[in-house]
C-alpha cells in the first residue's frame, strides 16, 4: 500500500507562502507528474513530503500515517540538485547507500551506472552535472521501494540517458510502484505519467488523468462574418474555461462537451467551426500562462 495524502499543505518562508493550501491525493501504483512553472512550489512540496522541511500547516500522510524514519526504507528520492559528496568516489557512495538501506542492490546499481556511462572510481567532483544526476538516479533505482519521488530526474542528461530514466520509471510503474516526478520535459510527462497535477504559485490549478484531460479539453474555434456578435450564452457555459476574441475569430477553451459547444457556435452564426486538440503542453500553458498559450497553440483538428 502506498497512497499519499496531502491535505491543505502550507509552507511559509519568511512570511511568504511557497505552498499555499495545496491538497492532493496520490493513489498507489500510479505514475504521477507534478507540473508547474519555476517557483511554483513543487520542490517545496517534495521537501515537506520527506520531512526535509516542516509544513507551516497541513499534513502529509502515507497510508494514513505520518512519515516515520522506518518509512524511508520504502521511499527513494532523487533531489533536483546534486547532493553527492564531492570528495567521495562513486564507489564510496554506493557503499554508503548499501549500509544505509537493507533493500539496496549494489550489483544493480553498478549495472545502471554502466548504462549511464559513469566511471565508479571517479570522485564526485570530477563528474559533470548530468553524471551526478545519473549517479543519484542509479542509487535510487537500485533499491526495491514502493514510492519514488523524483525532482527533475533528467536534469543535465543527454537525450539518450533521458529516455533511459523514462524507461526506468515505466518499469517501476509496471511493477506496481508509485512514482511521483516533476519535470519540465512535458514530452516525458505525457509518456510516463498516468495522472498529473499542475501547480502555480503554491496552489493546485489542475489535476486529473492525462488521457481524460486530453480527451476533454479542446479549443472550439469559429469565425464570425462580422464583428458584431455576442457570445453571452455560450461564454457563460460552465464548461467554457476561457474565451479569446480577436476581431472576428473566437476561440473557446472548453473542459468538456466540445462538440456540443461547437454546435452552439455554429448556431450563433460562426463559420469554419473547428474543434482543436490540445496536447499536454497546451493544457499546461493554458493553465499557467494563457498569453503564451494562445500564441502557440498549434491547430490540430480533433478526430472525435
Amino acid at each position, binding site marked *: 500500500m502506498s497512497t499519499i495524502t496531502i491535505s491543505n499543505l502550507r509552507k511559509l518562508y519568511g512570511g511568504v507562502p511557497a505552498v499555499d493550501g495545496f491538497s492532493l491525493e496520490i493513489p498507489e501504483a500510479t505514475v504521477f507528474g507534478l507540473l508547474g512553472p519555476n517557483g511554483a512550489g513543487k520542490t517545496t512540496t517534495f521537501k515537506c513530503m520527506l520531512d526535509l522541511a516542516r509544513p507551516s500547516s497541513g499534513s502529509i500522510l502515507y497510508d494514513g500515517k505520518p512519515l516515520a524514519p522506518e518509512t524511508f526504507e520504502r521511499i527513494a528520492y532523487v533531489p533536483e540538485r546534486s547532493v553527492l559528496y564531492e570528495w567521495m568516489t562513486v564507489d564510496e557512495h554506493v557503499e554508503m547507500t548499501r549500509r544505509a538501506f537493507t533493500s539496496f542492490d549494489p550489483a544493480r546499481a553498478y549495472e545502471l551506472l554502466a548504462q549511464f556511462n559513469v566511471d565508479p572510481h571517479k570522485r564526485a567532483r570530477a563528474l559533470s552535472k548530468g553524471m551526478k544526476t545519473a549517479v543519484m538516479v542509479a542509487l535510487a533505482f537500485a533499491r526495491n521501494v514502493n514510492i519514488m519521488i523524483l525532482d527533475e530526474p533528467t536534469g543535465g542528461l543527454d537525450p539518450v540517458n533521458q529516455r533511459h530514466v523514462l524507461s526506468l520509471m515505466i518499469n517501476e510503474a*509496471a511493477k506496481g510502484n508509485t512514482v511521483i516526478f516533476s519535470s519540465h520535459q512535458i514530452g516525458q510527462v505525457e509518456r510516463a505519467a498516468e495522472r498529473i497535477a499542475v501547480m502555480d504559485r503554491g496552489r493546485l490549478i489542475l489535476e486529473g488523468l492525462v488521457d481524460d484531460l486530453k480527451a476533454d479539453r479542446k479549443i472550439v474555434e469559429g469565425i464570425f462574418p462580422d464583428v458584431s456578435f455576442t457570445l453571452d450564452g455560450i461564454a457563460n457555459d460552465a464548461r467554457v474555461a476561457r474565451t479569446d476574441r480577436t476581431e472576428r475569430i473566437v476561440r473557446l477553451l472548453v473542459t468538456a462537451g466540445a462538440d456540443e459547444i461547437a454546435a452552439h457556435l455554429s448556431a450563433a452564426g460562426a463559420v469554419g467551426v473547428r474543434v482543436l486538440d490540445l496536447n499536454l503542453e497546451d493544457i499546461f500553458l493554458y493553465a499557467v500562462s494563457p498569453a503564451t498559450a494562445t500564441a502557440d497553440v498549434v491547430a490540430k*483538428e480533433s478526430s472525435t
Partner: protein
Amino acid sequence: MPAVLTVDPRSGVPIYLQIIEQIRRSVALGVLQAGEQLPTVKQLAIDLTVNPNTVARAYRELERDRVIETSPGRGSFVRPDGSAEAPKVGAEIGRGALDVALREAKSVGLTRNEVRDLFEAGLERWFPTEAA
C-alpha cells in the same frame, strides 16, 4: 509482433486512443493476423516508453470492442473473427478521413461543386482507372 506501432505523445490525441487506432488498423490491413499474440501490457509499455496503464486501457477497450481477447496467464490475442471486422474497420477509417477533409474544405468556404471537382481529381490520382 512487427514494430508498426508508434505513438506521438505530443499529439492532442490521447495515447490510448492512438494505440487502439493503430492496432485496429493493423488488424484491418492483415498486418496482425487472426489468433496472433500481442505483446504483454508491460512489454508494450516498455517498447513504446509509455505508461503501462495507458496500454492496459487500450487493451481493455479493444477487448470490449471484440477486436482482441485476453486469457489470464496466456496473454492477449487477436480474435479469430477480428479480421472479419477488417472491411468494417477500413470503412470506418476511410469515413473518418473523408470527414476531416470535407470539414476542412467547408471551413475554407469551398462550394459543393468545387469539392466534387477536387475529389474527382484526387480520385484519378490515387485510384487511376485503367485506360480502356
